[in-house]
């Protein structure tokens, strides 16, 4: 064995000594028991984690169903039911002035303010353009 190998062997011997005391102090039986206990706890936590949303979903569904049934029996507010109707279908018989009035009224409704005295933009539009504006407002 040369000096180089001797040095390597010494290094390996030192490395094998490292941590030996910590390993000796370790209570292996207690460590095994602790690992099993912690695994069990984590498994329970995971189970709870998966169960909780199901319970919440079930509870929410029960509340919704019970609330819906109660509302139905008490004759509570119901959504108005009527067929779809588009204002644009009624525009054909209107003159340009009528259309400007409708648009001004819409402005008032949307803004909650009085219409401006002068609506130069609307006055410059043709009846077809006014109808197009109204249709676009309907969405």
């Amino acid at each position, binding site marked *: 064995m040369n000096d180089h190998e001797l040095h390597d062997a010494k*290094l390996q011997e030192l490395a094998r000594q*490292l941590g030996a005391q910590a*390993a000796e102090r370790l209570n292996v039986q207690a460590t095994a028991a602790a*690992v099993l206990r912690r695994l069990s706890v984590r498994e329970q936590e995971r189970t709870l984690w998966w169960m909780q949303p199901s319970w919440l979903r079930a509870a929410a569904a029960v509340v919704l169903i019970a609330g819906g049934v109660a509302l139905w029996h008490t004759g509570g507010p119901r959504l108005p039911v009527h067929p779809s109707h588009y204002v644009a279908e009624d525009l054909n018989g209107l003159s340009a002035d009528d259309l400007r009035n409708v648009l001004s009224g819409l402005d008032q409704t949307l803004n909650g303010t009085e219409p401006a005295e002068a609506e130069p933009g609307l006055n410059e539009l043709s009846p077809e353009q006014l109808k197009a504006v109204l249709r676009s407002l309907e969405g």
Partner: protein
Amino acid sequence: MASPDPVAASSSDAALIAAWQAGDEQAAAELVRRHARALARFLASGGARDADVDDLVQETFIRAFRAVGKFRGQCQFRTWLLTIGGNVLKDAGRRAAREKVVPLDDALRDRDGDPHEQAVAGEAADRLREALLRLPRMQREVFLLRAQQGLAYEEIAAALETSAGAARVHYHHAVRRLKEHLE
């Protein structure tokens, strides 16, 4: 705790892993008994404080058991376990740094430990420990797996997902730097 089941004690690691996956807790306990001390030595050499070794050993086994489905037998169970221990140690170091407690690299080990151990531990071993902590993680782990655990380069390479040649290079770099520090 009950004494180890003699059947479990004589089983291979692979058989114990299969038994654990089938729900046999005693198989897991036997794996802990079988590999805990080697893991503790690895962790302590890698920079864990004495006071933390037990907890880090437990955490390593817990991670290993929960991820055991990913273990394909590419290396020995112990080698795979040690690499998980390296990750646990790294995470502990990060936590310590975040919490601004004494970092693992500076702590080296618990100076309030057993006075007898302090007396017995040689100066060379202390210097080696310090030098190990200055190595890059890959070099440190390869050195410990090779020099302390006596593993072949092929085994180390399989565990660390590198080549045997690269593991050999890491080992020689580690040895060179450790010698520089010790001389």
